[in-house]
């Protein structure tokens, strides 16, 4: 067995372990694992419409996942990404409701404003971290609650639909503010292009620029990098803002391309999922699309479990989280075995 084959097999091991885990759980609740997996796959790929849904679901995951690579490289847990998505959606919604412009200018404005909103919220998380000395996980969570509260307040007060406010959101946007879709399919080509573009841009920024190198240095050893002259505060703030901008873009796309309105649950946990995507990608943007595709297929396919088998759709989430956990544990175990081997080797040499 060549080393390459071995690497690939070891790479697949965590996925097998995670499947084993979910299979065990399915057996425990008395469901047929075979039926469940088939149901998810059918739900994701049975028709062109479903495949289009999967591709559309990739978009926010790719944008946010790529954004999370930036903050992870800088050593930061930008958990506030949920709020950054929400702020992007809020800013875009404001434009959609208030600017009676034709399609091209209004969409451009919505996307740019969305990025601005997300970047601002990300910047705020960065400020809390740098000047407030609050760990970014807690600062981010606080800002998520605040963003959620703001969204609900807007939907229930100034943006209340004529027939009364509900959790189902605002009135639909005027037609020009809807991102054009591919025929009857629920996927907007522009959104997919933007997502793929973000991968290329971030890959290049992290790999080929001083900014990327400086973020990497800060992430690996903050004190040393600072003392070597890396301007830590501006770099961290721009990292948060850049991730926030991508998340904001995702938020704007979700309300313009998917819902055509602002809803309270606009972020829909995409931020937390993208955190898992970035972890699984090992902070390498080039791997994000593939992993996003896997997650999106699970996300689109698993609601079928409720129809077919009366199971909760969160099985998809269980599988996603357990794959990430398995990757970590397998990686840790391999490192542990390597340490043990090195020790034994040394004793034999003596």
């Amino acid at each position: 067995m060549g080393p390459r084959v071995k690497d690939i097999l070891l790479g697949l091991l965590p996925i097998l372990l995670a499947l084993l885990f979910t299979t065990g759980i399915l057996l425990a609740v008395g469901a047929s694992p075979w039926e469940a997996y088939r149901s998810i796959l059918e739900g994701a790929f049975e028709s062109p419409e479903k495949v289009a849904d999967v591709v559309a679901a990739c978009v926010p995951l790719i944008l946010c996942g790529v954004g999370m690579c930036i903050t992870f490289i800088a050593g930061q847990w930008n958990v506030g990404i949920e709020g950054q998505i929400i702020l992007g959606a809020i800013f875009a919604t404001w434009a959609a409701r208030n600017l009676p412009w034709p399609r091209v200018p209004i969409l451009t404005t919505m996307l740019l404003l969305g990025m601005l909103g997300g970047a601002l919220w990300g910047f705020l998380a960065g400020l809390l971290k740098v000047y407030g000395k609050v760990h970014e996980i807690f600062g981010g969570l606080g800002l998520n609650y605040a963003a959620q509260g703001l969204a609900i307040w807007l939907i229930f007060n100034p943006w209340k639909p004529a027939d009364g406010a509900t959790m189902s959101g605002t009135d639909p946007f005027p037609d020009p503010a809807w991102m054009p879709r591919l025929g009857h399919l629920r996927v907007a080509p522009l959104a997919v292009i933007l997502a793929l573009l973000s991968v290329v841009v971030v890959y290049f920024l992290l790999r080929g620029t001083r900014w990327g190198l400086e973020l990497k240095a800060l992430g690996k050893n903050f004190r040393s990098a600072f003392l070597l002259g890396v301007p830590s505060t501006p770099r961290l703030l721009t990292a948060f803002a850049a991730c926030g901008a991508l998340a904001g873009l995702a938020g704007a796309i979700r309300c313009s391309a998917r819902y055509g309105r602002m809803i309270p649950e606009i972020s829909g946990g995409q931020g937390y999922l993208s955190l898992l995507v970035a972890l699984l990608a090992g902070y390498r943007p080039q791997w994000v699309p593939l992993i996003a595709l896997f997650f999106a297929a699970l996300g689109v396919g698993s609601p079928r479990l409720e129809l077919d088998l009366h199971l909760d759709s969160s099985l998809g989430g269980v599988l996603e989280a357990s794959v990430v956990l398995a990757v970590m544990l397998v990686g840790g175990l391999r490192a542990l075995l390597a340490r043990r081997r090195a020790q034994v080797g040394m004793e034999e040499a003596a």
Partner: protein
Amino acid sequence: MEIEFLVQTLSSLVAAASPVVLASIGETISEKSGVINLSLDGSIALSAMTGFAVAFTTGSVWLGMLAAMAVGALMALVVAFASITLRLEQVAVGFVLAMLGLELADFLGNPFVRKPGPSVPHWPIPYLSEVPILGPILFDQNLVVYLSFLAVVVTWWWIYKTQPGLKLQGVGERPESAFARGVNVNRLRYIYTVVGGALVGLAGASYSLSIKLGWSHRHTFGIGWIALAIVIFGGWDPWRVAAGSYLFGLLKALGSILQRNPAFANVPTQIFSSAPFALMIFALLLISSEGVDRLLALLPPRVARRIDRAIRGRPPGGLGRPFVQE
């Protein structure tokens, strides 16, 4: 009338805060030993679900509580294995476990959503509950609430007064020195992480069996993150951690009182339910920011040092750092 209302409010506040107290004390124990268990939010959700499901199926609240503790301990065991034996990044493993716990709770809890089920019986302590004012607030409660009191007192006593407690502090402060004194660092860390996890599991059970009966989607609503923040807010000291938990309870109670006020009729209820979370985080900001340093610098050093010590604590020196014997 006024007094009665106040007593009633405080009594329900003490009850409502009990899961937060249990969870944050549990986390304090494991962080004192040097391990960050960031999986709290998922642990609490999963153990709340398990506790209710077991109690519902068997009809025994006690079995439910035990099962919940076992789940919390198991989650902590995974954290301990990953961080102590495998030396993985504790924050990463904990975060992923938190998400896994939430999803698992949703999936497995599906058949139990919004089912009426058993609850921990109300159990006023004879005589003590009849003491005016304090009686109804503290001693006219159920067992889970009493357990939350006990957890604070016993944890404080164990850490600061006993010989094993000294070792616990040592393992968290500087594992190398503890090892030099013959302490089995990694074994103690395993034990305290799992014990802390069991308390977190009890916190979950107290949610579904005592405070907010039953099980539903996102039933425990971010309480794990709050407990983690409170441990920092309380400076890793059981009494102050407990105080922080009650402060959070107070914020929530104030929220629901304001909500009933007609002046806020327009404000959606979701805001009142999430505002305390945001406020708690900003309280954390308040004590940790540089602004406080600047203010303290204006005071005479002796006074400043006292205030500093009173409002914030130092994390254990070995927190989050795996111990490696040469």
